């Protein structure tokens, strides 16, 4: 049983971190992630957590310090957004190869230029090839629970890979919602402590971490890394079941809403899934058979399960909150990949929406559903929602 608190997505992230009580947090403030860092710093200042907090001088150093701490043997966390993620890219890229199970909050914000502090997914979609587990969250409740889940999945011996927990900048990070927080003792039992098996600070087991690996071996290490990624599915299921025993909820790879008999389905990440559900309720009331698939686990991408879930849907619209400029938008590309193996492939349409924090309305989603149902589609060209001209 949990307690309901009225908090923002950023606070939900900080709440999860409070309960995880990591050994080390290193972070650098950036809008809209800042309230996570501030909230957590307050916990440190008040002695609510035992964490050693390092308020570094840049995001590059934030991730470097977290990697140092995690290699040393600590459970270390961070949070960032947009330009911050871009600045730490180099170290973010190095982390999966070192097989460090770091969990980081990413508050999704557009990448410059033009500079803009609002939400889209161009930050995360710029690095989904690097080997981090990517988990998306529709609302503050999911942010909280996904963060707890991520720790255990990342640290599992079959995995040992870093994980990013995404939430929409401002829309989720700054909006107050009721969030059910579960009691500290059960959550702490669930998250446990990180094993010191690989700790550099264990001076009795002297080791060298991060050597130069030449063409004779690099390929083998990367293949091993891919194997670890493929293990995430089973671990995510097991850990999700354990967390579910505390929360009473389920942790699927994706959520489906009204897809059973749906004649058209929208696929969309994060907060816009909530808007889509509202639009579906309105349309269902008018007898329109429409539904939603909201991916939660985006890396690794559950192709087979998505294919199974959508195999009877004749028309699918994929809404992306970022572009791939000159190529299929990232979420759309994954759906095309997932559904390609079907004997009877659905008609598909790619849409771009919400760049730089532009709102998306239920009426616009209804419009998309109408268009999908009308069959006037062009799978080779993406369309734009809410764009002038």
């Amino acid at each position, binding site marked *: 049983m949990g307690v309901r608190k009225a908090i923002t997505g950023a606070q939900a992230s900080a709440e999860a971190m409070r309960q995880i009580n990591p050994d080390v947090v290193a972070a650098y403030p950036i809008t809209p992630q800042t309230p996570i860092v501030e909230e957590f710093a307050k916990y440190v200042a008040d002695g609510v957590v035992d964490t050693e907090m390092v*308020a570094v001088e840049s995001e590059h*150093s934030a991730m470097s310090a977290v990697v140092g701490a995690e290699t040393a*043997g600590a459970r270390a966390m961070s949070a960032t957004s947009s330009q911050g993620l871009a600045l730490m890219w180099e170290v973010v890229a190095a982390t999966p190869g070192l097989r460090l199970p770091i969990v980081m909050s990413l508050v999704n914000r557009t990448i410059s230029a033009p500079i803009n502090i609002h939400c889209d997914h161009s930050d995360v979609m710029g690095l989904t090839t690097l080997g981090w587990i990517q988990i998306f969250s529709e609302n503050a409740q999911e942010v909280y629970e996904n963060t707890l889940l991520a720790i255990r999945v990342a640290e599992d011996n079959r995995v040992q890979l870093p994980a990013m927990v995404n939430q929409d900048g401002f829309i989720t990070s700054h909006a107050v919602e009721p969030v059910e927080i579960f009691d500290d003792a059960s959550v702490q039992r669930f998250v446990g402590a990180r094993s010191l098996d690989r700790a550099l600070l264990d001076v009795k087991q002297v080791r060298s971490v991060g050597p130069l690996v030449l063409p004779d071996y690099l390929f083998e290490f990367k293949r091993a890394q891919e194997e670890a990624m493929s293990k995430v599915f089973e671990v995510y299921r097991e850990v999700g079941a354990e967390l579910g025993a505390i929360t009473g909820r389920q942790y699927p790879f994706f959520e489906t809403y009204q897809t059973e008999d749906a004649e058209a389905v929208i696929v969309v990440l994060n907060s816009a899934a909530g808007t889509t559900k509202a639009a579906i309720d309105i349309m269902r009331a008018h007898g329109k058979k429409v539904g939603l698939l909201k991916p939660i686990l985006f890396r690794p991408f559950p192709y087979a399960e998505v294919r199974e879930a959508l195999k009877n849907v004749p028309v699918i619209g994929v809404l992306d909150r970022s572009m791939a400029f000159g190529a299929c938008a990232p979420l759309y590309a994954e759906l095309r990949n997932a559904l390609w193996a079907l004997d009877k492939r659905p008609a598909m349409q790619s849409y771009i929406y919400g760049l730089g924090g532009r709102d998306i309305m239920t009426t616009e989603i209804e419009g998309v559903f109408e268009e999908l149902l009308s069959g006037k589609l062009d799978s080779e060209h993406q369309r734009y929602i809410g764009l002038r001209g």
Partner: protein
Amino acid sequence: MPTLQEIAWKTDGPDIRFVSGHRMCSGCGIGAIVKTVLAASDKPVVVVNATGCLEVVTTTYPFTSWNTPWMHLTFENAASVASGIEAAYKALKRSGKITDDVNILAIGGDGGTYDIGFQALSGALERRHKFMYLVYDNEAYMNTGDQRSGATPFGANTTTVPVGKVSFGKPQWRKNLVEIAAAHRIPYVAQTAAHSIMDLYKKAQKGFNADGPAVLAVLQPCTTNWAFDPSLTMQYSKLAVETNFWPLYEVENGVVHINVKPSNRKPIEEFLKGQTRFRHLFKPENAHVIVEMQKMIDDEWARLLKIEESGIQF
């Protein structure tokens, strides 16, 4: 103060922390620097190494020359990684998850320190993490074949600021890392050189025992790119000190102390000659460069003496 015998027993005896089989160029002084610094710690040393000569030659998978915990992440962040290790050390110690005491040592070349790692170093010093930062300074990007760095001396020929019809090499003076580090008001900063094993050992010991961050800048003559015979590494290191090109001094709790004052400082030509990077300076049209260099060295030395004499704290 230990004798050289005692130091040798630590650097090359049974408790050796840095072993043979690395791939440094023959005659490279980094080996002597690293083994001496590691030997100066009375606790196990956890090392973080920036990308550079040392990292590449000591850890070519599956070989490692480190007999002490060691890690490498990327080029510009050894000091930030050290910050994280130190934070982890504090946290894990506090919670009783680990019990062994350690010293934390970050190592970078001049490129990874004066240039690309400068911000990370400054941040870590300002936050006063308890660690020592060691820079082995060979005065350019030597691992990749002699490109200019912020530590490259005036007049040196490098591949990115080469000598040409209208260029005598690097037209700027080098950064003074010791003074920059000291400006962070940290407890210990020192400059020393590869040949001066006793001085290096003593300073490393002080750095490890300092109550906060310490910085050790060590001159490392590069046999490959300064291009002298590999047997002369320590000779060039000595000449750098005897010409006042590279004074041996320390800043302890803000107070400057010069460790070696050459009674009869040698002209800078003594240091320059025999090094390919300065060969062009001996042409008549570049005579003015040597004159200017000598003046700068003498001015800097006079300034350093004045600072020491004044007793004014950094």
